[in-house]
């Protein structure tokens, strides 16, 4: 399995996605400052209260970052899975004396591990930079303490599960149609839906945990569907 993962990394340009993750991180840092500064623009506007305080700011920012990384994972799944199994291209992979299931698992692992790692690092880096600058330029009510950082880590871990599940679900839908646009549009729609759900579960941590578990289950179900589909696939 390690060899298969190494081969996937070798024949796909992962550097492109590293650059994309860096750009996302920088952009999302700017968004976090915007979110934090928004209540100061209109102090009397009650709608702006959703950005006030770390309890609101963290889940809202993380939900947005989840949506962005969900789309990034869909782009990766499109390149690494959908394109490789579309048209006549499967002839190449199916000519190897390696289990088709294992090749599919290797591909899913590459994308899943990459997006999980890059999203985790992105969130942590963004909040660390924000936390440091908060010491000098105070934008959010309340202090940026270690417990706030732990809250960031906890929310990030939950969002990672949601992103992984949503990304695989989009890949599964795209795989049925063997279509790159279907994969990416599915990811955008799923991410939009998830953003709304997450935004409404910010008040209950238990609801967030249950939701993350549901998404993990959905991701696992789509993984099984993908593996079974590729094993029975024919190249006409």
């Amino acid at each position, binding site marked *: 399995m390690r*060899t298969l993962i190494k*081969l996937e990394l*070798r*024949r796909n*340009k992962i550097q492109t996605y590293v650059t994309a993750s860096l750009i996302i991180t920088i952009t999302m840092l700017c968004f976090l400052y915007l979110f934090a500064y928004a209540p100061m623009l209109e102090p009397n506007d009650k709608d702006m209260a959703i950005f006030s305080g770390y309890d609101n700011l963290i889940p809202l920012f993380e939900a947005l970052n989840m949506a962005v990384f969900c789309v990034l994972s869909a782009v990766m799944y499109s390149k690494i899975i959908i394109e490789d199994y579309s048209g*006549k*291209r*499967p*002839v*190449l992979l*199916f*000519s*190897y*004396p*390696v*289990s088709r299931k294992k090749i599919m698992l290797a591909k899913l692992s590459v994308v899943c591990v990459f997006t999980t790692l890059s999203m985790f690092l992105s969130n942590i880096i963004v909040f660390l930079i924000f936390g440091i600058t908060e010491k000098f330029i105070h934008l959010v009510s309340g202090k940026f303490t270690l417990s706030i950082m732990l809250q960031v880590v906890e929310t990030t871990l939950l969002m990672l599960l949601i992103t992984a599940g949503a990304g695989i679900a989009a890949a599964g839908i795209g795989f049925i149609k063997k279509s790159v646009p279907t994969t990416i549009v599915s990811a955008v729609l799923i991410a939009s839906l998830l953003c709304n759900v997450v935004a409404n579960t910010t008040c209950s941590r238990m609801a967030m945990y249950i939701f993350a578990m549901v998404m993990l289950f959905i991701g696992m179900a789509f993984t099984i569907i993908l593996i079974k589909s590729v094993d*029975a696939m*024919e*190249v*006409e």
Partner: protein
Amino acid sequence: MNKNLVVETDNLTKTFLGKEVIKGCNMHVETGMIYGFLGANGAGKTTVFKMLSGLLTPTMGKARILGMDIISQRGGILSEIGTIIETPIFYEHLSATENLEIHLAYMGKDNSDIVSALAKVGLNDTGSQPVSTFSLGMRQRLAIARAIIHKPKLLILDEPINGLDPIGIREMRDFFIELVKTQGVTILISSHILSEIEHLADIIGVIVNGTIVSEVSMTKVKAEYPSGLEAYFMDIMNGRRGHENTN
């Protein structure tokens, strides 16, 4: 089962959307032979090749390659065969060498023969040039190099000389004959260029509407048709010759 047969199919049938594309196909390819597989467009040559190389699952019937069942022992067969099916697919952004390195890694073989394999097909000076910049002929040569580099016992070649110039065709013909003579490789080859098959093949198989109607030795064809393979092929296509099997 005949131990001398590298490929043996028994009543192989493939149905697409209720339509039988391959019907009761019986093919027999002996060890160390070059089997020329002929047929009109849409007769089912590529479909048979795809079933033999595990890309399609037969609806009915059985087939064995090197004594292994094509469905239950697909992995074992794939490590012993080299294939070119339809237009060859590559990792376009990588060089010829990198493509072969990845192929060998998936095949579980080492990289020692890459330079000589590329030299044999005339691609030794492509360096780091990505495959996306290759001409049709160069792609075909690379596909041949990829098919032979892991030292397969059977080559399944679907129109392997497409896109090659006359010199390239001649070189590849000599190369295939050398492979059979020196390494004992068995070759199953299809081509619309009948003169090429005439030069190469030991056995001719003709498929008409999804059924192999004839399997005869090239010697017999030459004896009966001094004007060449084309006259024999046309007689079968026009129904002037019935089913025959000399195996």
